[in-house]
């Protein structure tokens, strides 16, 4: 008796729960690995899985076993030169012991246990510190949606997409083109035959030769296929990401001496979060990094996060530079513009009112959103108070004082709340 069952359609993710349990158990180690990855990665490159390695000793399941020592007598295959009574030195490997340098049974792997986190899992761990609401997490984890659009015809594809009209038109064209020469030859031969027949009879060798030639031409014509795989045309559809607008994101950060590594790390998470959000909404995003102390510079990402400067702080220098870049390169009718600013709140006293004026009059009207985080534990200083006045005036300006990564999210709350991002929301 015998049954044959096709199980292929049964679920294949039987181990998903076990995998999840595994991740949960080693949450600590995985989180560290993710944090390290976030530090090393560019903010535009956050959405990948990540290789995580965990020391083998942490994940071993211990059982009682024997160690080296005592008396072991083992049998091995493949003796070549030994005879009874031969002696030799103990191999250094320490693993299986015995045997001439054989890799023993216990010498295996003190390597780390390495495995891949999927993109979703990676983002989940990344979001863990940020205390994002679940709805937002799912929104951010969704991959870009595509919509199929017609895009002409191609010469290969699936049979369901065959475009009959185009294919037959192609076939007709090919038949005409290919039959042109044989047809001419045939006609010429036929005419010649007609002429000949007027003078000679049917058994003349010339006539017979001509008849053969005509048969050959007809044969050639008959061999032109009516339709050929070459003629087939398929409707072509391309997947167009949806929506298809573009955005530019400015990262502005104070890099004066008081911004330490920890603060920069929080700032980086802040920028990443905005980037992830924008990525859902726009097909193309450019990121501009502006760092400043008393002067502002546009830099690349590496310098942005890693170069160190000292000295005082003039925030308006950065704002002026942002404004200049927008006017030169990102006309606001073509670009959706977002600015994220991170600082520890220090500013040169008399500069703060300038900042407010710059923001309120020149910059904010051009923007979709301006998010400001002040990473500090101290008392608010004059910049904060000036910014509060701006916030009262513009709805798309948000600001927040934070001490750790978990507090970043409310800065974006309004931004995420809006379903469609398309419309401009100047006050």
């Amino acid at each position, binding site marked *: 008796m*015998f049954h044959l069952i*096709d199980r292929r359609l049964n679920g*294949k993710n039987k*181990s998903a729960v076990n*995998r999840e349990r595994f991740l949960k*158990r080693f949450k600590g180690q995985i989180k560290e690995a993710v944090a390290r990855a976030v530090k090393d990665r560019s903010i535009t490159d956050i959405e990948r899985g990540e290789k995580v390695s965990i020391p083998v000793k942490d994940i071993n399941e211990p059982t*009682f076993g024997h160690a080296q020592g005592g008396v072991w*007598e083992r049998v091995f*295959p493949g003796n070549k030169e030994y005879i009874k009574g031969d002696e030799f030195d*103990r191999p250094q490997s320490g693993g299986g012991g015995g045997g001439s340098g054989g890799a023993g049974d216990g010498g295996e792997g003190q390597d780390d246990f390495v495995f891949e986190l999927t993109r979703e899992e990676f983002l989940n761990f990344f979001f863990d510190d940020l205390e994002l609401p679940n709805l937002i997490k799912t929104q951010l984890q969704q991959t870009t949606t595509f919509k199929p659009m017609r895009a002409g015809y191609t010469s290969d594809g699936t049979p369901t997409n065959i475009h009959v009209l185009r294919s037959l038109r192609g076939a007709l064209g090919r038949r005409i083109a290919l039959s042109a020469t044989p047809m001419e030859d045939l006609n010429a031969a036929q005419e010649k035959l007609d002429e000949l027949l007027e003078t000679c009879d049917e058994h003349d060798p010339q006539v017979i030769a001509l008849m053969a030639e005509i048969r050959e031409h007809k044969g050639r014509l008959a061999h032109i296929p009516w339709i050929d795989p070459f003629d087939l045309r398929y409707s072509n559809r391309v997947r167009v990401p949806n929506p298809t607008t573009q955005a530019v994101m400015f990262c502005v950060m104070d890099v004066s001496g008081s911004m330490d590594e920890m603060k920069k790390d929080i700032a980086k998470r802040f920028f990443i979060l905005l980037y992830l959000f924008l990525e859902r909404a726009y097909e193309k995003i450019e990121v501009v990094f502006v760092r400043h102390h008393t002067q502002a510079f546009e830099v690349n990402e590496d310098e942005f996060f890693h170069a160190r400067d000292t000295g005082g702080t003039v925030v308006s220098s950065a704002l002026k530079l942002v404004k200049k870049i927008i006017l030169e390169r990102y006309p606001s009718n073509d670009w959706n513009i977002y600015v994220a600013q991170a600082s520890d709140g220090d500013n040169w006293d008399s500069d703060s009112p300038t900042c407010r004026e710059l923001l309120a009059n020149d910059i904010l009207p051009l923007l979709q959103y301006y998010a400001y985080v002040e990473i500090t534990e101290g008392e608010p200083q004059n910049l904060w108070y000036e910014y509060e006045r701006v916030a009262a005036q513009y709805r798309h300006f948000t600001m927040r004082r934070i001490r750790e990564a978990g507090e970043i999210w409310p800065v974006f709350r309004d931004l995420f709340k809006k379903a469609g991002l398309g419309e401009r929301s100047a006050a």
Partner: protein
Amino acid sequence: MTRLAHTDATAEPLSTGSEWTFELIQRYYDEIARIAADFGLDTYPNQLEIISAEQMMDAYASVGMPVMYHHWSYGKHFLATQKHYQRGAMGLAYEIVINSNPCIAYLMEENTMTMQALVIAHAAFGHNSFFKGNYLFRTWTEADAIIDYLVFAKHYIAECEARHGEDKVEELLDSCHALMNYGVDRYKRPQKLSLAQERARLVEREEYQQSQVNTLWRTIPRLMEEREQAQQTPRFPDEPQENLLYFIEKFAPLLEPWQRELVRIVRKVAQYFYPQRQTQVMNEGWATFWHYTLMNRLYDEGLLTDAAMFEFLHSHTNVVAQPGVDSPYFNGINPYALGFAMYRDIQRICTEPTEEDRQWFPQLAGTDWREALDFAMRNFKDESFIAQYLSPKLIRDFHLFSVLDDDQNARLKVSAIHDEAGYAEIRRKLAEQYNLAAREPNIQVYEVNTRTDRALTLRHYQHQRRPLANSVHEVLKHVARLWGFTVKLESVDDEGRVILTYDCKVEKRHGL
């Protein structure tokens, strides 16, 4: 290969291409079944399941069983398998076969028709008949009930997780898994499993067990005569116990009823796998012998094309390769190679015995090889199988030699090789190498201090002065977690002196 009676080389091959279809599998199965019946193979009914590579990895990760409770360690195995597979470092096994009735064998959809036929011959007839015939499997496993029992276990554990929290269940399972190899009665026949009884008795057993535990640990003052009795029986348990998990299940003072049930589940699963650990060489050798014999017969009858036969031989040769000890590929003795060679050798001794064979195996030479093989398959485990059947010819073919590694000597010594003087010794030593009792440390429950601190003392009876590995500290923590009180482990040497003590103190009472 011994050519057999009705060779009919004019028959049409069953298939020519490498693609399989359901109809073809059916036809191959029927032909293989016919030949297997000819050879007198007795099997459970077969259930062949076509699965994808991902499903194969899933099955791999949960110890090959179609149903299994959830645990992080299976997730770990899955990740490891997946990594190796995706890197291409490892092909998936062609087959997984489950000792159940009906016997379930997996066929991977990626396999060619030839490979499917090989797997059918190997798993559905080779392993299957071994499961049904070998005395260890007959004694220790319940092929009829295992799937039902695992369904019960999975549901029960899921229920416990819901009721008591995943973390608590996980901790407990971790501890039980650490002692899994010590959850088997080696000499007592286990009870039959049945899903219905299992459910019906669950409640009853929980109550009864708890009451037993309570009696043991009772602290209310006893009656005078009882007290006298108590003084007369100072030791508990009165004999050392080898089944640690059983002892914990029955006597650990602080376990809740559901925790005892979990210990029991792990114990039952361990018991189910116990015969497999003792019959690697025999089981794999048997399956390999039969796929080889059955496929050859198919070919002889003209049912396989030359191409299919070459494909089969290619993979068969890979399976039974045995690199020598000095080869970079050496990784111990290949159970497929040794087992296959031994069954083939028994066949040879029966049909074409040499003078040497008549001397060593007078009871085999010239007898019917099918009966001899059947007897060998039914009545042995690896250790006794090798002790009984390893022939001088095989020892020579494998160039076996033994090396003595005594930590009191500075150098290793070759103690026997494949020569006249060494055959018996090599055979004895190789058999000993497959003795599970010698491979794993012998650890037993020695004593429980029922009167004061309730400490549990385990004893490790040293064999050949072999010390315990460092993992002992970790494992003791697990034992202490289950026991709830201090746990000691004493290493005892050959003369019964305690030479080393480990302990894991549990200071204050705490539940799990």
